[in-house]
């Protein structure tokens, strides 16, 4: 395997984007990525597009987006790993270049979720587990899947609803400083605690919104980085992936996601670094409890001590390990297939020290960052370590 760098990134505005269709949304991420790398679609021989789909009209999003973005003719694959589809596309593009098969590849994360109504979205995501055994008779929703984890974490470790609210308050604070974020406003603990219950104990402000968005990442070999005279390449230092059972009943426990533990361990081993070396991270906070479990699963703290990090403000800018200082899925938004690439977009900006507002730039010494992207309820997990 050879060294691979991120050489270009782009991200659409996240939000309720009824002003653009699927292909037009992809273009908003792909064009800036071309400009950032100083290349065009003609220079890219391989495209991996991550999208969960099912809530928009196109069956083949990869071909539609590729044609619209001037990528027709390139090798093309559509990757599905639920909410980690973007990371699956990133990993696929990375492996294409790392293997030596191509010198440049693009990963595109794309999701258009607001063309159907909320009960339909809840239905389709609720089916994302094991339809036959867990949805058909019991109508489990995605908030409910994570609520089951919240209940277990609260019972075992004394995690409170206030702890969960703190995650939401933090992520809204940083989203308000992020121009691509869906939500551009801060909230209080009181707002979070008083919001309506969606799936007890999770309330509205514990849940990520339904968001449209796209993100694109261009990867290149070391030789190509030199040829293109890229001044600040961000290197892929480690990559780990794992999976969990389709049936939630076949998991080890409900206080963490085993797939995330395994993916993180592999990524750290690959990169030759430890959790203490990470200076900024994006973690999969589709629900507030998921961010607390992520701290523990990645190894930023011991199991059961995630709440301590959020209570002490250790995951803020200036804390021990800033997490989701782009607003996270909770407030930047979670266009399912786009999220994995959008995490890489954010961390590339952080590592290049190009964040628009200084207040949300993580202080860096080692220039090492980590992205943790979960698909489903720990059904898939991808952990990526980047280094400038």
């Amino acid at each position, binding site marked *: 395997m050879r060294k691979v760098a991120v050489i270009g990134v782009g991200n659409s505005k996240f939000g309720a984007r009824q002003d653009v269709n699927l292909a037009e949304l992809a273009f908003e991420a792909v064009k800036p990525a071309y400009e950032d790398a100083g290349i065009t679609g003609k220079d890219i021989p391989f495209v991996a597009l991550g999208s969960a789909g099912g809530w928009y009209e196109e069956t083949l999003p990869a071909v539609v987006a590729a044609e619209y973005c001037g990528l027709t003719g390139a090798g093309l694959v559509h990757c599905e790993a639920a909410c980690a589809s973007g990371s699956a596309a990133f990993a696929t593009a990375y492996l294409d270049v790392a293997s030596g098969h191509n010198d440049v590849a693009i990963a595109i994360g794309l999701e258009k979720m607001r*063309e159907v109504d909320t009960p339909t979205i809840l239905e389709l995501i609720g089916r994302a587990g094991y339809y036959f*055994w867990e949805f058909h008779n*019991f109508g489990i929703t995605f908030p409910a899947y994570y609520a089951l984890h919240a209940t277990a974490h609260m019972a075992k470790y004394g995690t409170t609803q206030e702890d969960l609210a703190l995650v939401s308050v933090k992520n809204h604070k940083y989203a308000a400083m992020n121009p691509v974020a869906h939500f551009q406003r801060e909230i209080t603990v009181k707002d979070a605690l008083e919001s309506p219950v969606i799936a007890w104990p999770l309330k509205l402000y514990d849940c990520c919104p339904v968001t449209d968005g796209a993100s694109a990442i261009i990867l290149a070999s070391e030789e190509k980085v030199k040829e293109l005279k890229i001044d600040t390449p961000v290197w892929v230092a480690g990559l780990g992936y794992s999976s969990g059972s389709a049936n939630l009943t076949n998991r080890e426990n409900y206080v963490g996601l085993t797939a995330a533990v395994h993916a993180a361990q592999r990524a750290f081993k690959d990169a030759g670094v430890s959790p203490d070396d990470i200076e900024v991270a994006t973690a999969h906070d589709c629900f507030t409890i998921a961010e607390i479990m992520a701290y523990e699963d990645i190894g930023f703290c011991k199991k059961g001590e995630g709440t301590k990090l959020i209570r002490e403000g250790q995951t803020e800018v200036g804390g021990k390990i800033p997490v989701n200082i782009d607003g996270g899925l909770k407030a930047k938004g979670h266009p399912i297939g786009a999220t994995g690439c959008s995490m890489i977009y954010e961390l590339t900006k952080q590592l290049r020290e190009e964040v628009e507002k200084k207040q949300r730039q993580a202080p860096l010494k080692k220039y090492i960052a980590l992205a943790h992207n979960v698909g489903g309820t720990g059904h898939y997990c991808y952990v990526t370590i980047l280094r400038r």
Partner: protein
Amino acid sequence: MASRPPTLRSRPLTLTYEIPISKTHRFWNGIKEGKIYTTKCKKCGKLFFPPVADCPTCLSSDIEWVELGTEAEIETFTQVLVLPATFQNNEPYTIAIARLKEGVRVLAWLKDAKLEETKVGMKVKLAPKVSSEGMLTYEFLPI
């Protein structure tokens, strides 16, 4: 407020899947008899729930059907208030995951229990159920 951007409505499509149940027929028939059956691998002895016809560990298809007991203990639970499209006519429901005495876990609705009285560690019983619409299912009930 900006007005909603113009959209074009797609052709509507209703999808229904016919899901094969030949290999788990015993389970669904058992519910009608008032029993919960599951499978056990005859080669490695592993007990499954939900039932499977093929063992993913030893890859044997030599399995036997066994009847499960009813005693279970709640490991976690939630009450779903915002409901998905095909459950819009339901009242909010409580979903629990409980571990049976035999070791396997089951996810099902917990009926006849108030949320504020439901706790992790609570003992419940697993009961087969044929709904008023004839749907075959199973539920947890407080003891």
